[in-house]
């Protein structure tokens, strides 16, 4: 058990430090306990990404999640608990998988895992990286958390799952690739119909994670580089977008896009920050998003269906960003809708957003990864999305939110509590019933042992 950083880990470490710094700065005036949580998060996340074996990775991943729970829980305790349980469950599955995989010794070294436990690893990492069906926690958590926590969640925490996938997927995997495409499509389809600004961004995160998963599962060097590039560009852009969504919330006191108004008039700079983030996300040329999306599409050369799906999801991304931009920043108020006093965004938040803008712009201008191929490939879907939004605005009005997997969670919770209360009924306090159970157990044990011994000896 030791730490052994390679290039990938170092990139993750830098990203972690940068994102934590920005979101700490964004939060503004802080008390001591509020400072501890981001620092703890950053430390654990860095240690997780340089860990040399899976056990350490999982341990620090869990610890970073727990540190994040404190940040999420600042506003909404229920969401924090929800997040904690899902992350613990995912980490637990990963632990079981690691235990299964380590034939001798206490752990398995970071890197590809034995064949048999691969699905379990994908399942565990899937909870962290929000694979389809396992993403039930993501929209709720991202939308309910404070903006800086959402930025960290979307910008870094879910990326740890992707980082794990980086380590285990070394060859082409069609299943994973189609899962990635499904994620991309799902996020893109659900995104434009949300009325909650941060929920919308959460779905967009889902969609971009799908891009990364698809690129990783090509198994080629190009795909891995592309995924890493997209990881960075998405982290920056999404962080910025969440910050501006947080700004909206501070100004209007709500995240509901139906109630927000012409922010553009009072906070012009914020709109530009949003625009930079959105354009990078949509893949406008000369933005980091464009380079990385281009790389991803290049790496998926030959998988036409996947490419088609990714292109289509680009349309959805663009649609949802347009929706947020229009309803959040541009839409004028009509008549009595007007709110009385808009709030203000603190200065430090502005600094933080400026810092992110700077990072995005510099990365777009001087991409550290070789821009192979055209970065123009994402322009078309973005344009299609924009025109769709302009031409057919009706379905995208912020009215309600569509149903998703997470709406099944309460039903499952009901089932669970019904089961649990039936277990409770067993403990009726009746001595005779207890003794009856005891005798039944004795009978079953004896029966089992005798049958087993009979079959053994014959």
């Amino acid at each position, binding site marked *: 058990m030791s730490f052994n950083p390679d290039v990938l880990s170092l990139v993750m470490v830098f990203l972690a430090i940068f994102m934590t710094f920005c979101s700490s700065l964004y939060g503004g005036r802080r008390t001591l306990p509020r400072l501890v949580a981001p620092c703890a998060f950053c430390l654990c996340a860095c240690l997780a990404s340089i860990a040399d074996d899976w056990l350490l990775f999982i341990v620090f991943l869990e610890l970073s999640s727990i540190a994040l729970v404190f940040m999420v829980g600042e506003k909404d305790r229920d969401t924090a608990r929800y997040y904690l349980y899902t992350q613990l469950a995912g980490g637990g599955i990963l632990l079981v998988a690691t235990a299964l995989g380590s034939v001798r010794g206490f752990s398995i070294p970071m890197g590809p895992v034995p064949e048999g436990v691969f699905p379990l690893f994908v399942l565990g990492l899937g909870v962290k990286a929000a694979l389809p069906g396992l993403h039930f926690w993501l929209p709720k958590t991202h939308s309910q958390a404070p903006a800086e926590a959402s930025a960290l969640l979307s910008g870094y925490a879910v990326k740890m799952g992707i980082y794990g996938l980086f380590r285990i997927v070394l060859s082409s995997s069609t299943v994973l690739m189609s899962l990635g495409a499904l994620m991309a499509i799902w996020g893109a389809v659900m995104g434009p119909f949300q009325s909650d600004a941060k929920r919308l961004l959460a779905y967009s995160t889902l969609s971009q994670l799908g891009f990364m998963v698809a690129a990783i599962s090509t198994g080629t060097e190009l795909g891995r580089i592309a995924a890493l590039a997209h990881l960075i560009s998405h982290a920056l852009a999404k962080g910025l977008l969440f910050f501006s969504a947080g700004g909206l919330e501070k100004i209007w006191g709500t995240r509901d896009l139906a109630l927000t108004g012409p922010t553009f008039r009072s906070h012009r700079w914020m709109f530009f920050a949003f625009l930079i983030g959105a354009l990078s996300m949509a893949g406008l040329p000369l933005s980091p998003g464009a380079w990385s999306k281009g790389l991803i599409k290049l790496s998926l050369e030959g998988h036409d269906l996947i490419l088609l799906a990714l292109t289509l999801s680009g349309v959805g991304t663009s649609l949802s960003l347009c929706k947020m931009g229009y309803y959040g920043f541009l839409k004028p108020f009509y008549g009595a809708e007007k709110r009385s006093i808009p709030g203000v965004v603190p200065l430090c938040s502005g600094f933080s957003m400026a810092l992110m803008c700077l990072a995005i712009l510099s990365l777009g201008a001087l991409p550290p990864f070789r821009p192979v191929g055209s970065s123009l490939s994402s322009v078309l879907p973005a344009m299609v999305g924009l025109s769709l939004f302009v031409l057919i605005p009706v379905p995208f009005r912020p009215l309600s939110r569509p149903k998703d997997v997470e709406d099944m969670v309460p039903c499952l919770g009901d089932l669970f509590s019904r089961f649990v209360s039936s277990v409770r009924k067993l403990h009726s306090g009746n001595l005779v019933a207890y003794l*009856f159970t005891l005798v039944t157990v004795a009978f079953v044990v004896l029966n089992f042992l005798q049958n087993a011994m009979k079959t053994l000896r014959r």
Partner: protein
Amino acid sequence: MRAQVFHRWIGAALCLSLGWWMWRGLIVSADPSLFGPAAYYVANTASDTGASNIVAAILFDYRGFDTFGEATVIYTTVCGVAMLFAKRRLRRSSWGLSPIVKRGMGMMVPFILVYASSIVIMGHITPGGGFQGGAVFATVTVLFCVIYGSKFEASRISPKVKEVIESSGALLFAAVGLWGLAEGAGFLANLDAGFSSGPIGSLFSGGAIPLLNIAVGMKVGAGLSTLFYSMIKILEDPAEGPPPEV
């Protein structure tokens, strides 16, 4: 009601099948004979321990540690029952029987006591021993309660005395055991620890076994008596007063 009948049938079926599985597990050797430690005990008890009652020899010598534990169980129970019914004064719950019975009992008591002590002291020669004799001792106190009224015995022998007897019995047992340990022969060693054995079958044979019997007798007699008196403490005062003096 039907549910109860159903419950009974299921219970009966469960017990029957449990019994059936146990029955299948029986081993009955066609020609049983003594084997293992039992054969050794039967052959060598006399020379090893000097007791003529092999069961007593096993109880107090070979497996004396079991007996130590067993006596401790009773001690624990007595202590616990006394704790459960603590802080309650002994109320008068009976006034005793007629003077004829009282007088008759007075004549009987010495004989019962002698009988009890003989069971205790001759435990290594005849079937019997500390537990049995102690129980007879306790019977005397029960008889006192029935015949002379519930307060009689408690007024003559205070509970503290019983506790002292009980605890010293237990400590005597432990001391005999530790004596063996100090002599270097192991806990509860008998002849090896220097306890002398007379001729087999005589009263002073068996090394430490009579001593241990006495210890257990003290413990059990006082303990069972305490148990009885703790439990009758909570009985209600009878409505009528003492019977008229004749």
